[in-house]
């Protein structure tokens, strides 16, 4: 799927790529950064056991550290080391375990620089995986990045492909601020062409236009872009000219690209696998509504999970995630809308 590679990517000096899965690309980037910068190190529960990717243990020694089940201390250890010159990459494994360290994330990581009047730097990366769609049940399957968007002081990325995983992880590690990387377990196995250039980076705050179009702007977060791709297939080649945007980073958020697209298409559909209320999709709709009063050709639409937990039982779990049909229908009805308008 060539649309994965955005314009920026092609500008790279080195054009050689390698086929990697999302997870391989992620781990490879951490390893590359550890090689390039001795202050980068990584920690995670069972990380030396290779449960979430295999690191060259002999090469890095103490710089790959297995952690006890002490989430608050683990995040605190990352914060304290970041404040004193290191660049930790902390693998929290599952995104729902962030809650066990929420004080350290929200009160300490996000606030320390501000509270101390700029004295602190916190170059730390927190990786976590959203295990949904695979019967892990509600203690593992949250998709709660929007909660963290409400917290000033945190940068947030949600990679949607191997190449994005690579470029965003590098940007996260090189960032001087705390970055949360929400990985989607259903994408871990996806393969794609990934640049080998050891400086290949996707700057935080740059959306990717995956497909250009002029009728409807469709914005998807993380894995939901796959659902969008499937919906586009359902809709067929002709008829609607659709622009597909992947914001890639939720903070900073590339409002410029999103608003420019809506300015052109004047129709917008946002797809997100997270719950609806106070989610990313709602935020995009609100911002669009503030900017395009009287100029939209159809009501802005969101296709999200409802405000409901996902069940263990496979069909029940699936029923609550945006389906290709629902996305296709949302795009179609938005395009065909002929209600009140200017």
């Amino acid at each position, binding site marked *: 799927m060539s649309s994965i590679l955005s314009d920026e990517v092609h500008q790279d000096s080195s054009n050689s790529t390698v086929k990697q899965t999302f997870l391989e690309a992620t781990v490879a980037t951490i390893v590359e950064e550890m090689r390039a910068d001795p202050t980068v190190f990584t920690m995670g*529960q*069972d990380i*030396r*056991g*290779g*449960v979430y*990717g*295999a690191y060259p243990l002999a090469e890095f020694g103490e710089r790959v550290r*297995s952690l*006890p*089940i*002490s*989430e*608050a*201390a683990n995040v605190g250890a990352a914060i304290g080391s970041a404040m004193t010159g290191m660049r930790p990459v902390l693998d929290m494994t599952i995104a*729902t*375990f962030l809650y*066990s360290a929420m004080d350290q994330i929200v009160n300490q990581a996000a606030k320390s620089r501000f509270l101390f009047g700029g004295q602190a730097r916190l170059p730390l990366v927190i990786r976590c995986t959203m295990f949904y769609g*695979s*019967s*892990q*049940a*509600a*203690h*593992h399957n949250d998709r709660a990045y929007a909660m963290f968007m409400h917290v000033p002081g945190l940068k947030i990325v949600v990679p949607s492909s191997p190449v994005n995983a690579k470029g965003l992880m590098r940007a996260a590690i090189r960032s001087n601020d705390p970055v949360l990387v929400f990985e989607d377990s259903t994408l871990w196995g996806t393969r794609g062409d990934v640049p080998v250039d050891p400086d290949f980076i996707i700057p935080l705050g740059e959306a990717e236009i995956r497909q250009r179009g002029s009728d409807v702007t469709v914005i998807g977060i993380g894995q939901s872009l796959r659902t969008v791709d499937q919906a586009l297939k359902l809709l067929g080649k002709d008829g609607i000219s659709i622009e597909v945007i992947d914001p890639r980073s939720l903070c900073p958020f590339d409002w410029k690209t999103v608003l420019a697209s809506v300015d052109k298409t004047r129709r917008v559909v946002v797809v997100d696998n997270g719950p*609806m*209320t106070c989610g990313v999709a709602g935020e995009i709709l609100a911002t669009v509504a503030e900017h395009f009063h009287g100029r939209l050709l159809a009501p802005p639409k969101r296709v*999200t*999970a*409802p*405000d*409901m*937990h996902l*069940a*263990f*039982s*496979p*069909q*029940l779990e699936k*029923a*609550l995630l945006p389906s290709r049909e629902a996305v296709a229908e949302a795009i179609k009805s938005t395009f065909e809308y002929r209600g009140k308008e200017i």
Partner: protein
Amino acid sequence: MVELSREAKIEMLRRMLRIRIFDEVASELQAKGEIPGPLHTSIGQEAEVVGACMALSRQDYMTGNHRSHGHPIGKGAPLGPLMAELLGKETGVCKGRGGSMHLADFAIGSLGESGIVGAGMPIATGAALSAKLRGTDQVALTFFGDGASNTGPFHESLNLAAIWKLPVIFLCENNGYAVVTRASDMVAVENIADRATAYAIPGEVVDGQNVLSVHEATSRAVKRAQSGAGPTLLDVRTYRYRDHAEFGKMGDSVASYRSKEEVEAARKRDPIEMFAKILIEGEVLDEDGVASVRAQVISEVDEAVDFARASAFPDVSTAFDFLFVDAVAPRH
């Protein structure tokens, strides 16, 4: 020394066998794809579960963790709804919502297992507080692992239970590992029992492969709890034969974290075999008697599987159920 009736001893064997066979069958079903999601077995740990549960009465409370099947089985839950839960069926004990890591059977005092390591301890503490406030003689027992003894909630719960002298028993299923990481690398102290010192409560190392030792120690803790003296920390040494979880297709890159020899050595102290031997030597049962209990349990598990298989998946129209008691339609 607690006196156990013949029936109680046979029931101990039966419950241990239930856990063993239930989990063996569940593993097979998971491998075949009939059970979705990951699955954590208690095979090898049956004695600590059953020894503890048999020291409780039906109305006593219990919370547990991701390794969740053994606990409700040990406390006497019927197998059909448990197996149906693993298959994600509407007849499951949690109606297919919770699955393997979140079994609960409130009818027998099982207040729920937890996919979040350490999270069951504060909740058991709360159940014990409730018993105290209501003036009943109920106790609460919480199962957790060696890994969980490093969580903040462990510390906070033990302290809270100790200052309020709550009737709660903290039972650490110390199987030496958290996923693929050794307790000896992660738990700073040799005996988790020694952590009791931090709360001025009794802490005891218990042979978890001997169901009678566990029963004995837990019974003592129950007495203490009921007497108003407060919590006890039991550091129960056990071993799991299988890997942390059956992950389906995951975990290929996992390095070997323990030796075959270690597993073999542990298997030599198989809790079920050891207890069967005790029963035979004590003339509670003969070999045939043991075999017949086993045969009964096998057919119980088979029936549970049949029940589960014959049951329907939850209807998609019920996807919004059980969010609130006082109904609020979820937004969508």
